[in-house]
């Protein structure tokens, strides 16, 4: 088990190194001039050249790359080229908002997805199943940003229940969390439903049913528990997907998390912030995956061999 974890850990570090390299290359290849962006269009060229020197942008790419890696190892991701604040500080400041939104989204996912799957799986083929499956399909078919805009229009403007975007209270959180969660809930309901159906087909469930146990007990004690393991790992993986979806939702709702930060950084050519947000997001994804895999391996020894 330890060697398995170690092997996976090395793999995770390699992936993060790959992400850092790709993001560095991507940012280096981006047309644009961060120094000019900072100084503004009206600043004379000498000013801009001075900024390039101050930031080390006049150095050749390999030198910049080695410097970047070296500093990153010491926990220094550089300073934002827009407001000169340390990237670590700027990103960690925004992290709570994103985590809050992602967790709330996950909550919506579970609160919506699990009952739907149960409803569908306990009466396969029934009208409930059709409706639940249909809803799930619609859920993954709606463009989240459009749904966000429409919901802002309807629940923020026509029927002003929720604030029109922004951050602060629970009320601000509800709409973006629902929009973020709906797609996941739909996805979730589909997978959990088929897991439930698989388990229901197993012999021991038939036996339990034959023994005359009440359907409720069978559902709670046997089916649900067995179907839950793959579902929990799915939730872990899904948190990773959620982090990706967060960019669009944050842009629509003006939610001050790292998704919006990354989006603005790309528009402003704030390269250290772009690399910082990408790094944070991918570290989160890699480690959630790692955690899920290790958990899985701990529960199912067959995985380790492979």
């Amino acid at each position, binding site marked *: 088990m330890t060697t398995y974890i170690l092997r996976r850990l090395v793999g995770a570090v390699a992936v993060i190194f790959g992400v850092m390299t790709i993001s560095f290359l991507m940012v280096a290849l981006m047309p644009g001039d961060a120094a000019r962006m900072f100084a503004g269009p009206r600043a004379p060229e000498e000013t801009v050249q001075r900024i390039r020197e101050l930031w080390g942008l006049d150095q050749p790419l390999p030198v910049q790359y080695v410097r970047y890696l070296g500093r990153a190892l010491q926990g220094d991701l550089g300073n934002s080229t827009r407001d000169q604040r340390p990237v670590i500080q700027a990103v960690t400041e925004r992290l709570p908002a994103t985590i809050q939104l992602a967790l709330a989204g996950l909550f919506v996912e579970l609160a919506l997805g699990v009952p739907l799957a149960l409803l569908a799986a306990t009466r396969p083929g029934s009208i409930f199943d059709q409706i639940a499956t249909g809803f799930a399909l619609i859920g993954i*078919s709606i463009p989240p940003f*459009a749904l966000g805009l429409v919901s802002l229009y309807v629940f923020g403007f026509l029927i002003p229940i929720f604030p029109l975007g922004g951050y602060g209270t629970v009320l601000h959180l509800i709409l973006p969390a629902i929009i973020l969660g709906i797609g996941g809930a739909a996805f979730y309901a589909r997978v959990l439903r088929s897991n439930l159906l698989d388990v229901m087909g197993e012999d021991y469930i038939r036996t339990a049913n034959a023994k005359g146990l009440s359907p409720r007990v069978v559902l709670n004690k046997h089916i649900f528990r067995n179907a839950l393991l793959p579902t929990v790992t799915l939730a872990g993986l899904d948190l990773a997907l959620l982090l990706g979806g967060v960019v669009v939702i944050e842009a629509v709702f003006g939610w001050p998390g790292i998704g919006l930060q990354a989006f603005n950084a790309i528009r402003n050519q704030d390269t250290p912030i772009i690399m910082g947000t990408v790094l944070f*997001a*991918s570290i989160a994804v890699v480690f959630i995956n790692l955690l899920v895999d290790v958990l899985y391996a701990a529960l199912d020894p067959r995985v380790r061999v492979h």
Partner: protein
Amino acid sequence: MVTLDTGSRDDHRTFLGRMRRQPRAWVGGGLVLMVALAAIFAPLLTPNDPLEQFRNGLSDMGTPLPPSPDFLLGTDGLGRDLWSRLLFGGQVSLIISVIANLTAGVVGTLIGMVAGYYSRWIDSSLMRVTDVLLAFPAILLALGLGSVLRPSIPTVLIILTIITWPTLARLVRSQTLAIKERQFVESARSVGATDGYILLHHILPHTITVTVVWLTLSIASTVLIEASLSYLGVGVPLPTASWGNIIREGNTSYRIAPWIILTPTVAILVTTFGFNLLGDAIRDALDPRTSLQK
């Protein structure tokens, strides 16, 4: 677990027969066909040029017009006919999604098969690349690539392909891993078949079903991502209409002209819903064990 109580035996055994029995296949196929026909015959179905900015297409105050006989779905902020833009935009969105998925299908299948078949360092290096790409938040990768390359339709295709193939490569790889241990691969190898021959004639036929199902479902999500990219400004360049573009331009005026963002949203919904239904049906028809009719 397929029950054989109704219909002829042949009907259950052939793929088409199983497809025919599923209402989802009919509904999904119908929706996809409808959208595809609307996009293909856009020039015949629309009275107006999608790029023409009509002098009578804006109110006196310069605001977009609501739906009327002249403009079936109303106009946008430049006085263009939204019905025309919707249909021609559908053309662009669909073509891009289909081409990107076919490319990703080829790349993903190839890399997945090679990685699964050869294992060792080829496998681990290829899989490490897919891991890195999968660890990147897709939309950030897309936004980043979108600013490295100038916004254009080929750029959108490249972005969509890059963020789509890794998932497929993983699927195909695990299929290949299972298949290459099977008896017929062993026997082919023992009679001296080359790796290329085995990959093409023995492995590919068994992985192609995974690819087809995945492609159908993936077109649905690609339509969504393409729209998101256009909405965030790194997609199809204006003034060409695409569904994401229409939403992006209507975004600033959704309170005075909500129809601008509503119509493409519905179009996207119908398209992705159709492809998802169809994909589900194909999957079940190819693999009856996971069918709904348990």
